[in-house]
C-alpha cells in the first residue's frame, strides 16, 4: 500500500484543490457537499464484487427472487453512501482551543462542533496518523485530538481529516479541515545544573560550598569547579556535585546571562527546566530574559505560563 500512499501524496501536490489542503481557513469551518469526498473502503470494494457475483448468479440461473434480493441489497449499500455523506454534511467546526505542551509532547486540541440539528455517530479525526473517534449529539459537541509537536514557538494546527464510515463501513466520506490557527508550544525543559544562587543573598553563599549532597551527570556549561573528580574517576564519566535546592524558600532568580558556553536552544531549555522545577516545587522565581526584561517574582500558574510563553517565543 506504500505506493498507493505515494501516489496519493503526489496527486495532492499536483492538485492541491483535491484535498483543499493548500489554504488554511478561519473558523468556523462548515463542511458542505463541495468539500466532502466519498469513496468505497476496501471492504466496500469487496462487497461490490460480491454483489456482482450475486447478480451474475441470479441472472444466469434466471432466478428472479435472487435478482430482487441482489437489487435490494445493492440499493441499500448504494444509499448507505448518502448516510456517510450526511454524517458530515452541515457539520461546523466552531471553535478550536489548544492546550499547551512542551515541544516533543503531544498537544491537546479541543474541537467544538456544531452538529446543525442532527446526531452524528462514529466520526473520526485523523491527525498525523493518530485517529480519534467521537460522536456528536444533535446540538453540539466537543472532542479532543492530540497534535504532535516538534519545536517551541507557534505551531500551525496541521490539516486534519474528518471522516465517517457510517453505517456499514462500506464507504468512507471525508473532508479536510485546515484551521488557520496556531498553538503555542513551550520549549522542552532540559535538566541541568541548578541555577547558581543569585547575588545579594549572603546566607546562601555561605552555605553554598559545602552543602553538596548528591551527584549528577555533567552537562555542557556546568562550572568545572563543581565536578566531583574522585567520583567521576570511579564511574568513568563526569559527575557533578549538586546543591540541595529544596530548602530554598526565597524566590530564585533564573537569568539568561548566567548560562554561558551553550547554544541558544539549550539555554532556553535550561531556563524552562528551572522554571518547571520551581513551579513544581511551588516556590517563587524571577525569570530574566536576554533583553533584560524581568518576570516575577511570583509562584502561581499564570506566572508559569507567562514565563514559558516568553521562553517559547524567544
Amino acid at each position, binding site marked *: 500500500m506504500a505506493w498507493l500512499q505515494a501516489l496519493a501524496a503526489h496527486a495532492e501536490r499536483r492538485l492541491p484543490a483535491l484535498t483543499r489542503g493548500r489554504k488554511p481557513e478561519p473558523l468556523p469551518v462548515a463542511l458542505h457537499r463541495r468539500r466532502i469526498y466519498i469513496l468505497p473502503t476496501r471492504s466496500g470494494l469487496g462487497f461490490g464484487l460480491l454483489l456482482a457475483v450475486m447478480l451474475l448468479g441470479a441472472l444466469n440461473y434466471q432466478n428472479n427472487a435472487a435478482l430482487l434480493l441482489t437489487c435490494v441489497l*445493492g440499493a441499500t449499500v448504494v444509499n448507505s453512501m448518502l448516510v456517510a455523506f450526511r454524517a458530515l454534511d452541515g457539520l461546523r467546526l466552531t471553535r478550536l482551543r489548544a492546550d499547551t505542551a512542551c515541544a516533543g509532547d*503531544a498537544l491537546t486540541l479541543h474541537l467544538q462542533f456544531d452538529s446543525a440539528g442532527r446526531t452524528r455517530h462514529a466520526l473520526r479525526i485523523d491527525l498525523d496518523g493518530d485517529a480519534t473517534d467521537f460522536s456528536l449529539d444533535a446540538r453540539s459537541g466537543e472532542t479532543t485530538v492530540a497534535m504532535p509537536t516538534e519545536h517551541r514557538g507557534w505551531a500551525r494546527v496541521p490539516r486534519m481529516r474528518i471522516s465517517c464510515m457510517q453505517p456499514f463501513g462500506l464507504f468512507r466520506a471525508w473532508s479536510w479541515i485546515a484551521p488557520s490557527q496556531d498553538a503555542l508550544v513551550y520549549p522542552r525543559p532540559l535538566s541541568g545544573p541548578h541555577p547558581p544562587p543569585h547575588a545579594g543573598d549572603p546566607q546562601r553563599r555561605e552555605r553554598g560550598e559545602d552543602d553538596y549532597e548528591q551527584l549528577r551527570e555533567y552537562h555542557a556549561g556546568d562550572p568545572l569547579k563543581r565536578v566531583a573528580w574522585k567520583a567521576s574517576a570511579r564511574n568513568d564519566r563526569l559527575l557533578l556535585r549538586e546543591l540541595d535546592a529544596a530548602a530554598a524558600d526565597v524566590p530564585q532568580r533564573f537569568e539568561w546571562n548566567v548560562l554561558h558556553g551553550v547554544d541558544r536552544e539549550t539555554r532556553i531549555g535550561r531556563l524552562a527546566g528551572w522554571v518547571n522545577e520551581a513551579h513544581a516545587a511551588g516556590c517563587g522565581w524571577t525569570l530574566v530574559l536576554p533583553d533584560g526584561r524581568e518576570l516575577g517574582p511570583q509562584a502561581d500558574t499564570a506566572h508559569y505560563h507567562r514565563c514559558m510563553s516568553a521562553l517559547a517565543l524567544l
Partner: protein
Amino acid sequence: MSAILRQRESALRAEARRDASVRTGDVLDARAFDLLCLTVACTLAVHFTHLPVSLAAALAALLSWRWLQRRAHRGNIPALLRFVLLAALPLAILMIYRTPFGRAPGTALAVGLLVLKLLESERPRDARMAVGFCCFVLMSALLFKQSLAMTLPVALALLPALATLRALQADAGTQPFSRLFAPGATLMLVSSPLALIAFVFVPRLPTPLWGAPGADVARTGVGDRMAPGDMRDLLIDDSPAMRVGFAGAPPASDERYFRGVVMWFFDGRGWMRGSTGTRDAAAQPVVIRGAPLSYEVTLEPTRQRWLFALDVPLSEPDGTHLDADRTLERVRPVTGTIRYQASSATSYTLDPALQPAMRQAALQLPAGYDPRATALARSWRAAHGGNDAAIVNAALALFRDGGFAYNLAAPPLGRDSIDDFLFGTRQGYCEHYASAFAFLMRAAGVPARVVAGYHGGYWNDYAHYLLVRQSEAHAWDEVWLAGRGWVRIDPTAMVRRMIDPGSNGQSDAGDDGGGWLTWQDRLDVVNRLWDRSVIGFDALRQSELFAPLGVSKLELGQLAAGLSIGMVAMLGLAMLVALRATRRPPRDALEIAQRRLQSKLDRCGLTRQPHEGPRDFFARCMLALPDNRAELAALARSYLSLRYGHAAPQAEPVRIYLREVRHFHARRVVK
C-alpha cells in the same frame, strides 16, 4: 544525548498509541459477535428445509457451542480442531450426497464453511468477510425455492447481517442493541424504489452463461408415464400446480377435469404416452355443444412438455402442438412459470368415428399379464354381448361394491399388478383405479385410454381464479362408445365418494369455507401476484411492460439506458433528500436585510471580513464612501440597536430597516 532521549521517548509514545488502537479496534467486540452469530443462525435457518437433518443439526450445535465458548472467553478455536472440522465437512457432505457436484451439496458446503468461518472470527475484518459470505449463502437458498414464503425470510435475514456491519462501527458500543438494526431496516425500506427500478431494467440473460440450474430434487408435475405409486408424492404436495382464471363463472365442480397427458400404451406395469396415432395425426374431430369456455392458465414449472387444459381443448396456445388425442405438447419442458390462453368444450362428442389405427392402439395389451383380470373382463363381454356401456357399468359396479377403498398408502403390487389390486389389496388411489379400469375395458374389447391431469380446484372469489394444487393430480379414463365418442369415466369417484363424500366437491368452497379459507384465499392471491410479477418476470414480460410505450422489441441498449436513467433519477432524488435536510434554518429578517446591504457594499469592493464586527465594518464603509456617510451612519445606528438592543428584533422596525437598505445606493467616489 537529550535529543536521542527525546526521540526514544516519542517512539515509545507512538508505540503505546499503536498498541491502544490495536487493543480497541482490532478485536471483534462481544455484541458484534453476537450479531454475527445471529446472522449465521438466520442463514442456517433459511437453509434448514433442504439441508439433511443430521448436517443441519450438527452445524446448529457447532454454532451455538462457538457462541457460548466466545462468551466465556475470547480467542480462536485451536487451529488443530479447526483443521479437523474443515476436513470433516467435505467428507460428511460427500457421504450424505454421494457427489460433490450440484446445487444441494454445493450449498451445504457453503453453509458449512460459513459456520466454520465463525470459529476463527476474532477481528472486525473476519466479521465483514463472514457477513459478505452470509449474503451470498442467503441468496443461494433462493435457488431451491423462489416463493414469497422463502424470499421474505431471506430478505429479513439481511437485517442482522447489516446490523453486524453497523456494530463494527466505532460508536456501536454506546448504541442500544435495537438501534443497530435501524440503519439497515430504514435503508432497505428507502432503497426499495431503487431496487425495483434495477429489478425491472436489468437485462435478463437470453441463455445461461454456465450450467443450467441443476435440478437434483426437481419437483415434477404430472408426467407422461404412470405406474401405481408414481403419483403418491404429488398427491400429498399442497403447493400450487396452476391457476386458472375464468372470465365468467368457473365450470361446475364435477366438470373441472384438466386434461394433461393421454396415455395409450400399457406395458404390464405402467401406462405410457406411446406414439401410436397421436403425434402426427390430425386432431380428433370434436362436435361441440354449447359455448366453449375461454380461460387463462398460469402454470407452475413442471419440467414436462405437457400443458393442461380444461376437458377438451379446442385450440393450441402459442408454441404448443395439439396432438391427435387433444394433448397439448410443447417442444421444451416448462422450466419456469408460464401463462397461456386456451378455450375448451365441456359438452361435446369427441371423435365420433374412431380410426382403425386408433382403435387398435386403444385395445393394446401386453401378453402374459394379469390372467384373472383378463378372464373377468371376458366374462363381462360374454354376459353383455355388444353393449359396451353395460361393460363399463359392470366395472364401475365392481369398484363400488367390491370392497375397494381409497388409500394413499396403498400396499405394493407384484408382477401382475392389476390382478393383485383387483383380487388382493383392493386399496389404492386414482392411479390404481384408472389403470385397472382401462385394463379391464381393453381386455373386454372396449377401446380405452388413461388420462392424467388435475381434477378439482379451489375457487378464489377475491381474484376470480381457480387454484389447482399438486395434490389434485388425478388419473381417469376415457372409453370410446359408439355414437358417443370418447367418454370420460372416473372410476376413482366410485370409491372416493363413499369414503369422503365431500372430498371431490371441497374445491368449490370459498363461500362456505369460513375464516381459515378466506385467509388462505388472500394468501394465495399474494402468492400469485408474487409468481406473476417477480418469479415470472422474464425477458418476455420485460418487453411486454414496455409495449405500451411503443417499444416492440426491447434492445439491450434501451434497457441499459432505462436502467441508467432510472438509477440516476432515484439516486438524484435520494441525494436531493440528503442535501435538503441539511439546509440550515432560514436566517431572521434582520440578517437577510443586512446580507442585502453587504452585497450592495460588496459591489463597491467593500467586503466584510470574517473578523470584522458590524460597527467596524460600518466605520470602514463610511470612510470609503464619504458621500453615503450620513446614510450609513443611520443604518449602522438602526442595525446596532435592532441587533443588540433587544433579545429578538421587533418585526416593524426591521421592516423599516429593510426599506432603508433597499433605498440605499452607494455613490462611488471616482478616484
